[in-house]
């Protein structure tokens, strides 16, 4: 019998679509902006993907209510035990308390649905005593503890415990600072994870100063191919934003989406709604993106403003992707998780990624299409 801790952070992931870059302390505000709970949907995808061959061999340990029990019930599962009774709305302390309870029940693995904030809370309790696995449902997922998709998470659980267990860094970013545009990915702690190649997100690869020159080449090239009267939506990250430096434009949003037309920034830190408004006004549009770290996530992590609606209106053929050579050297594949499987499969088998002056690399698109 596999003893599995299962917990859901009910508020995680809500800030993404409304451009909040994290939901810590912002859940009510996010709700007021029209955000919907993400983690519950991801938890359902995960539980519904569990295979009947091994499900009877699992005993879940979970908090009562939205932090776990509700999702298990909804999936029609009865093989669980309640280990805590959180007061809702829940907070970080409830996550930690649940993990303490799971440890005292001697679970073999904790599976949680959340983002970097949830990972940090879980690992602050488990340390490296037992392995953990994240089902991606946060806004930021820079840590290496996440399965690529809920479905991949289910597959890993099926194989557990006959898998290699490795150690990975849990990263986190101060959300207040992140909203201001300061990206400081710090190592919060070390976690044990079931290691399956290409099934788990690698820790975000943080660019070093050595590829600054490469980034400038990319920015200069992008600046050179910028066309008049075309709306450019420039996504998060140093590399995508290098075009602004080359155009001598400052004050852009490092971790958000800014709009550029005729070499001027016309609107900053756009939400999905802002983008849709702009798309109504401008016919020609290009989206400039860079993949997120070693995970190779092009869409679906850190830039949820590019929602399925936005991508369909803008046209996926209008996406220009850029990344430094150093980043590409640790990015074997690009993952695309728009949130709409029918849109995911519209992407080609490989994407040309600008990596210098007049130069690109062809990188395969993997995983979620299959």
């Amino acid at each position, binding site marked *: 019998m596999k003893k599995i801790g299962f917990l859901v952070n009910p508020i995680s992931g809500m800030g993404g679509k409304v451009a909040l870059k994290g939901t810590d302390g912002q859940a009510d505000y996010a709700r007021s902006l029209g955000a919907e709970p993400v983690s519950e949907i991801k938890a359902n995808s995960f539980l519904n993907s569990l295979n009947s061959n091994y499900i009877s061999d699992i005993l879940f340990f979970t908090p009562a209510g939205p932090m776990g029990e509700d999702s298990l019930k909804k999936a029609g599962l009865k093989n669980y035990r309640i280990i805590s009774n959180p007061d809702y709305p829940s907070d970080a302390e409830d996550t930690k308390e649940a993990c303490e309870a799971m440890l005292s029940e001697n679970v073999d693995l904790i599976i949680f649905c959340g983002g970097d904030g949830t990972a940090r809370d879980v690992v602050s309790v488990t340390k490296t005593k037992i392995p953990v696995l994240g089902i991606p449902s946060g806004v930021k997922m820079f840590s290496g503890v996440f399965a690529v998709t809920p479905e991949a998470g289910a597959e890993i659980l099926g194989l557990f415990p006959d898998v290699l267990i490795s150690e990975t860094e849990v990263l986190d970013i101060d959300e207040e600072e992140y909203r201001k545009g300061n990206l400081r990915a710090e190592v919060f702690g070390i976690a044990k994870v079931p290691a399956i190649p290409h099934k788990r997100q690698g820790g975000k690869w943080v660019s070093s100063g050595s590829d600054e020159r490469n980034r400038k080449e990319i920015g200069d090239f992008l600046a050179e191919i910028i066309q008049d009267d075309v709306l450019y939506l420039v996504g998060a990250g140093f590399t995508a934003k290098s075009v602004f430096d080359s155009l001598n434009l400052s004050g852009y949003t490092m971790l958000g989406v800014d709009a550029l037309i005729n070499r001027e920034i016309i609107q900053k830190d756009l939400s999905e709604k802002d983008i849709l408004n702009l798309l109504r006004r401008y016919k020609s549009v290009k989206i400039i993106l860079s993949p997120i770290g070693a995970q190779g996530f092009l869409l679906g992590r850190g830039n949820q403003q590019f929602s399925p609606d936005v991508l369909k209106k803008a046209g996926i053929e209008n996406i220009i992707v850029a990344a430094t050579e150093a980043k590409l050297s640790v990015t074997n594949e690009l993952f695309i998780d728009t949130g709409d499987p029918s849109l995911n499969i519209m992407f080609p088998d490989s994407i040309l990624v600008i990596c210098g002056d*007049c130069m690109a690399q062809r990188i395969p698109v993997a995983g979620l299409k299959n």
Partner: protein
Amino acid sequence: MPVKILLDENEIPKKWYNIQADMPNLPGPSYNPMTKEPVKPEDLAPIFAKELIKQEVSTERYISIPEEIREILTLWRPSPLYRAKRLEKLLKTPAKIYYKYEGVSPAGSHKLNTAVAQAYYNKQDGIKRIATETGAGQWGSSLAFATRHFDMECTVYMVKGSYEQKPYRKMMMHTWGAQCYPSPTNMTNSGRAMLERDPDTSGSLGIAISEAVEDAATHDDTNYALGSVLNHVCLHQSIIGLETKKQLSMVEETADVVIGCAGGGSNFAGIAFPFVKDKIDKKNPDVEIIAAEPTACPTLTKGLYAYDYGDVAGLTPIMQMYTLGHDFIPPSIHSGGLRYHGMSPLVSRLHADDLIKSVAFHQNEVFKAAVAFAETEGIIPAPESAHAIKAVFDVAEECRKKGEEKTIVFNLSGHAHFDMTAYEAYFEGNLPDYEYPAELIAASLKKLPQL
């Protein structure tokens, strides 16, 4: 049916074939980069031998190969033509595959065919030393060997990155008596200027050309030599295709498809031009002639047919050719010989006139084909030549699907004995699939010289 089709030494061609006599259209004139006037023979005299300048503009169909040159060529020529039976079996293709192997030359590639001729004509002019550049080292080592034979000195400016990566190429040049320096050096103005700007630079072919040209222009007893691109280089390489045609006729074959890789265009010209003649003459009108390039530097496939400089600094004549822009520095792929922004004006013209075709491949698919070739035929192909092999694989696969018994012949221009680190990188999965983003660039073309 023999595996090796061999000619006798006395069957080495006595004349080179000059395609300028038969082309439906000649390339436009080249222009002096300073005056923007058409280049006159006297403009080239300070750095090239008289006879080579004549050959550059000649429209005579056949040009005699001096006996002294043929005598040196006997060291490795005639080169063998192989029937790749084992490869055909692997590919399950009804096509017949032949390859002309130029790796039998002492320097390991086709480059020696023109190095010997260029050294000879310079010796005739009383030149004591030849300065040149080399990227991967094939051309530098070929010229080192050729100048040794005519008792001349040789100075090679080798791109610093390669100089450090390929110590054995450097030692070959030393063995044959040449001086080889990592470029940029502090011996020339262009080198010093570059070092001042960036002391840690790993150099580039463009800089090395500038250094060698400057060296030749500032020393009366010194001339310059170029290993590809120019018309006289393509002329000297025609010996490859001339021998191949003779060898195919020995086994009563006619080529349906002729394939070579193309960087500056000389090894491609060498195998292809005598076959292009048959296409123009309607002797073999349907022969398909294909140039294989890297996607990282797809000059014929994605470039623009225009006037551009032959080097980064803009010191060379402005030539009508396919170009990716003279300021385009291709990424450091492992096929150093194919990293050139331009293309031979003769090859370019033929491509513009639809007499030849081009295809481009990624590094990984090229090495995959190279390894399969090595496993069946034994020879480990130079990464450059492996582009031609990948093109052969694709044509052979087409033949398999359609049940066509085509005769494919390609130029295996060199071996990889000094490029094994490239294979190592391939096996370790460390080769990026670089690609020139032509569609994006088309929106804003790079600066080309105005005439």
